[in-house]
């Protein structure tokens, strides 16, 4: 069954969507979408390093993204530049350095479009293993840190005062972000990973009245986006990443109709 590239892509996409749902909710709640961009842009550097030293792409991307995240935390402590400027600095410089390094690696043929926007043809059985095992691990860790992470998202001082150790939860969450980018890069492409995180979560916010529902709807929205996106990618011969994200955008727009309805009901 795994012989068919499309089935592989579908299974990979479902694995990714199960994880981006809950993580994406935290990205929206904690206002981290630009942070997600920074990490995923730095993933290009991780990919080039993987090619140069013949490492596994997911492992290499995970390491580089984690290093960039730690570097960012250090920069925030040491400089007075505002957070978004630092994020921009790291996002674009790591993307640029990655592209420059690719220029030097003339002996390897790169599918740049595939890296940036995802390539379903490239998903191997090994990738499936990484996505599903990695994804399960991410969800398990997220479940363990859920309480402190969620409490500190609502109010940092309250979580700290009542002994939940929010700083540790935040650090672990940062690593989980690097991990989801590492496992989803082949599917969605590094320019669009943040979209996969925030659009289903934003859609879910429009139709939920409590956090658990929002997580559930974000997962469902992600799954639908992957399925609709991949089928249309096959049908219209479009890149998988943009097709998935476009599908999620359509779901988001549909969820706006529901908001409009409930506002009308109130009036």
């Amino acid at each position: 069954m795994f012989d068919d590239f499309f089935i592989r892509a579908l299974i990979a996409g479902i694995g990714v969507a199960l994880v981006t749902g809950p993580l994406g909710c935290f990205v929206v709640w904690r206002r981290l979408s630009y942070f997600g961009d920074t990490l995923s842009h730095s993933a290009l550097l991780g990919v080039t390093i993987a090619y140069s030293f013949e490492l596994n792409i997911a492992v290499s991307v995970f390491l580089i993204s984690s290093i960039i995240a730690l570097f960012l935390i250090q920069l925030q402590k040491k400089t007075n530049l505002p957070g978004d400027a630092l994020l921009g600095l790291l996002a674009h410089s790591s993307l640029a350095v990655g592209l420059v390094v690719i220029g030097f690696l003339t002996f390897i043929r790169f599918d740049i479009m595939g890296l940036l926007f995802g390539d379903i043809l490239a998903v191997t059985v090994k990738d499936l293993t990484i996505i599903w095992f990695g994804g399960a691990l991410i969800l398990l860790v997220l479940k363990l840190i859920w309480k402190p992470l969620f409490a500190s998202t609502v109010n940092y001082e309250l979580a700290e005062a009542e002994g939940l150790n929010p700083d540790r939860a935040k650090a672990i969450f940062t690593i989980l972000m690097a991990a989801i980018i590492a496992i989803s890069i082949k599917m969605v492409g590094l320019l669009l990973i943040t979209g996969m995180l925030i659009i289903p979560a934003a859609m879910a916010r429009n139709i939920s009245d409590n956090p658990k529902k929002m997580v559930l709807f974000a997962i469902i929205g992600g799954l639908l986006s992957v399925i609709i996106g991949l089928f249309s990618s096959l049908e219209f011969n479009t890149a998988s990443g943009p097709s998935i994200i476009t599908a999620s955008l359509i779901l988001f727009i549909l969820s706006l109709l529901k908001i409009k309805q409930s506002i009308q009901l109130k009036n």
Partner: protein
Amino acid sequence: MSSEKNTLVKLENAGYSQNNKWLVRGVSLEVEKGKIVTLIGPNGSGKSTTAKIALGIYKKIEGKVEKYTKKVGYVPQKVSIDWTLPLRVNDFMVLTENLKDDAINEALSLTGVEHLKNKNLGNLSGGEFQRVLLARAISKKPELLVLDEPVQGVDFTGEIALYELIKKISDELNCGILLISHDLHTVMSATDHVVCLNGHVCCSGSPIDVAKNNEYKALFGEQASQILSVYEHRHDHVHSNEGEIKKN
């Protein structure tokens, strides 16, 4: 009077600075089981800062803080819930600790907001939200309660009822309370120990002692000191269960 066993949190000469400016400095105080310690002082005098030092929220501090309990309930001065986060009162109640439904209902009904359980936090009025904050803090039956202006925005009758509730909780749970309040009237009737702050400790002691203190008078004016003397008079009788008034 103070035995180590009863101490819940102790500040010794504690201070905290931000951007090279001391927010508060040289604070020593101690909260014991079953006792209410109240911080008073003008805006910017370091009341909330002192509470955050006691809670361990500020880590790089001068002096010493010793906390002897992990069961802490906190009502921060300001909590804002972002629209991006859908949160009902019910979800908020279990934010830091998993509670049984009974415990949630009990705490919410104590502060008079049981009917709001399934409401969205963003749709509550200021006073309702404050009652939910207090309910959440007491629901986990803490040993130490830190209340930073717990009744702000609550209507007048509610205010009195909530202060009575706070006093009752301190007695029933035998928990120590660190209270920050502007309302000298209500505070003084229930407080065991008052610390008057103005960037440093102006004066401290029993409410009556503080009221007589000249630094306190300089800070709050002669009128404030009269408020307290009113309380002095009101404490000259007790109410029995039958409603009789007995003179002390």
